[in-house]
């Protein structure tokens, strides 16, 4: 990303597009148009978008998690990939075989998450490891995000440790939104700030206010740059609050008012709007026009996905292997 101005504008537009899209997904879910579940990144857009904006599609790799609509968007995922997956269109990357946030385009450097938390950490390490073997690692970064809850998984730990042992240019963003589903931080870990784990892994550690886009741009963008420049693995812990339920089936009533009314209860998009305007990065009417564009884009993506065919079990290729057996004798 050339200039800071460009970086911030790009990040913000991804935040806006993500929010607009997710609001629509929520309505569709509540109207019964989406089955399964809808999982939003509301309140986490600044973290996710600044990460995604720092990455280069076609060069870097990025394993987004549950709340990374903004980061996906910034990394270059099309809205259609999202709406098609949520609506089960056969035209989508998952062809109706998997849904909602379980989507990706591994061939474009964005693997499709499995549900099991932490599992994408070693996977990104493996992608970087392969790039090194192929001699194309130079200047590349691999990034992934996890929640506070996912840090309790063995998969996270093994992946972090392995990435550090291999000294890979990996950036791991922990979005500490204070809850894992309903479970508050104090039932999840016993250190003061999860960033205290960085050193023990051999990662550089950074803490950031996840509701502050400028701070995220600086800290997350900076960590990506450091990793890209050979500074080794980077861990960033972003502090924020999940501004939605765990999924749209959940009203999140277990989140105490004190948290909602506290500093991290503020909406990073509102903060970012002010920051853009105050810093002279974007004018208010520009932002308004972006908003309109986003609304139209969402409208189109939903309309298109809705009119596309869903899978037909009778025409479906019911096989889990790419190899066709029997093989002929070799």
């Amino acid at each position: 990303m050339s200039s800071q101005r460009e970086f911030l504008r790009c990040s913000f537009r991804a935040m806006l597009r993500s929010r607009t899209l997710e609001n629509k997904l929520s309505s569709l879910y509540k109207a019964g148009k989406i089955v399964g579940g809808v999982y939003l990144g509301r309140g986490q857009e600044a973290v996710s978008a600044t990460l995604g904006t720092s990455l280069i599609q076609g060069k870097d790799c990025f394993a987004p998690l549950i709340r990374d609509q903004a980061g996906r968007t910034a990394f270059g995922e099309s809205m259609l990939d999202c709406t098609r997956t949520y609506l089960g269109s056969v035209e989508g990357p998952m062809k109706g075989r998997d849904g909602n946030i379980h989507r990706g385009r591994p061939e474009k450097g964005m693997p499709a998450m499995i549900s099991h938390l932490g599992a994408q950490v070693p996977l990104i390490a493996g992608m970087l490891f392969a790039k090194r073997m192929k001699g194309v690692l130079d200047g590349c970064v691999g990034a992934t995000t996890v929640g506070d809850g996912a840090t309790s998984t063995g998969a996270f730990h093994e992946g972090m440790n392995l990435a550090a042992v291999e000294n890979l240019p990996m950036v791991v963003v922990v979005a500490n939104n204070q809850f894992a589903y309903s479970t508050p931080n104090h039932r999840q870990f016993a250190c003061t700030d999860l960033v205290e784990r960085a050193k023990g892994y051999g990662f550089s550690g950074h803490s950031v206010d996840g509701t502050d886009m400028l701070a995220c741009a600086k800290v997350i963008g900076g960590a990506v740059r450091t990793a890209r420049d050979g500074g080794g693995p980077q861990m960033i812990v972003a502090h924020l609050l999940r501004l939605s339920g765990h999924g749209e089936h959940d009203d999140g009533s277990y989140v105490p008012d004190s948290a909602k009314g506290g500093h991290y209860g503020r909406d990073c998009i509102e903060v970012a709007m002010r920051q853009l305007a105050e810093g002279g990065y974007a004018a208010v009417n520009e932002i308004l026009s972006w908003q309109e564009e986003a609304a139209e884009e969402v409208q189109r993506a939903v309309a298109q996905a809705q009119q596309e065919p869903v899978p037909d079990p009778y025409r479906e290729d019911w096989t889990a292997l790419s190899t066709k057996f029997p093989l002929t004798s070799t």
Partner: protein
Amino acid sequence: MSVTYIDAIREAQETLLREDPRVFLYGQDIANFGGAFKATKGLSDAFPGRVIDSPISEDAMIGLAVGAAIEGMRPIVEMQFADFSSIAFNQIVNQAATHYYRTGMPIPITVRLPSGGTPGSGPFHSQSMEGIYAQYPGLVVVTPATVSDAYHMLIDSVKLDDPVLYCEHKFLYRWLKSKAINGDHLPIGQARIARPGKHATVVTYSAMVHEAVRAADRLQADGWEIEVVDLRSVKPLDLDTVLASVARTGRLLALGEAFPWGGVTAEVVAKVTEEGFHLLDAPPQRLNARDTPVPYHPKLWAAHRPTPESICDALRKLLSF
């Protein structure tokens, strides 16, 4: 008033907590929140300190439960979905399952596995793992199909001194209702005739019992009387009841919702042919899910698992021999 399958699970846990001070519940989001499926709703208030939220650490959750069992407790661990027990696989099959054989001390833990598919749940929230765990010596694997069994088998699971995988079917949670919980019930290890018949036997368990009964009802119109055997527990597997049914009907369809290679249906067919070959008037048949991950889209999902239609087709084939 009626009781759902999930109500029964909740009530069994309440009964257990009330009656046995050694029982505690451990799992993600099960305390104040009452669990992802509300199977523990209100229990943390009623039993302070005995319904405990765990970190997202399935492996350690089972490790903790085994340690607590060594100290004489009877933990019930809730996996948020059966699929996530893959993380706890090692502690289940290598720590819990081998403990009695190795040390002579049994490990009375019960692991609740919200199992099976529901529309839109996709590859990682739909799995049926009973046929995986049943392969391991030292584990008991139960698969209740009715509201009463959901209740009584959970109670009995906790009373057993050995580790039990309690596979509860998510599709039945709210859909399956009963007037009340029966007082009478069969012990773990004994199968049940869910529907009597004389022309063919369907051996199945969990949610598929209901699909089998539906299929049997349809075939009734054509004059076929299909017997449905509900295994209730897949390990131990009550071969006597199965053989007695096959002796009456001469025909066997083994039905399950899990992946098609191996698993419960293969074990049923292998056991029946080994011990009851002479009883069979036709080749025993199997019907399972398809050999792919469980798909997300409801249309794919519905075609992935056996349905009353596909069960009828399999039965017609079986009856035509």
